[in-house]
């Protein structure tokens, strides 16, 4: 416990570390917590975000495009992008669903949106831990 406290205190003295932790949390859900040796917390948060995202993909949910002409598409895209590396991996691997083909696929779209939004909360939590606002 004392060693972890010393380690975190040393990292906090360089003021860009929390931002790096937040960026890591965006790329890999839970990474910001793992960086700070918060294994259990990070594992549960990662499980939740990744689980939600994977279920959304299994259900063939829609990943919203970056379409400036449609505010709904932009809002959905911003939420999807919150999943970070998961979103990038899905796009890189060619995942493409223009419109949900069923009500079940629509649930998948909502799961994908929520995974991104939850990861935004996870990122902020990692940042707050990094700056010492939370213990």
């Amino acid at each position, binding site marked *: 416990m004392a060693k972890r406290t010393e380690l975190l205190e040393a990292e906090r003295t360089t003021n860009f570390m929390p931002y790096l932790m937040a960026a890591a949390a965006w790329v890999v859900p839970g990474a910001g917590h793992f960086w700070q040796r918060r294994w259990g*917390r990070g594992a*549960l*948060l990662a*499980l*939740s*975000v990744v*689980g*939600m995202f994977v*279920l959304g993909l*299994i*259900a*063939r949910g829609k990943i919203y495009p970056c379409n400036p002409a449609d505010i709904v598409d932009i809002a959905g895209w911003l939420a999807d992008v919150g999943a970070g590396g998961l979103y990038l991996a899905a796009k890189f691997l060619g995942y493409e669903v223009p419109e949900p083909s069923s*009500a*079940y696929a629509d*649930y998948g779209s*909502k*799961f994908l949106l*929520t995974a991104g939004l*939850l990861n935004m*909360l*996870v990122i*902020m*939590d990692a940042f707050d831990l990094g700056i010492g606002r939370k*213990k």
Partner: protein
Amino acid sequence: MLQLNHLEAAAIFAFFTSIVFAIITKDTVRDRLVYFGWCFAAFLGVVVGLGWLMKLAHG
């Protein structure tokens, strides 16, 4: 392909969301467990409640 009905999808949604809410907002294990249970029940309660409201409103 995994097929879920609306209640199952809502339960999974509530499960994962409640985990995140409980972990990031509460500090002790007990508080987190209690808050997880409360959030989970609230999500499902709202789903069922709104469903019944819609049925009563629309028949």
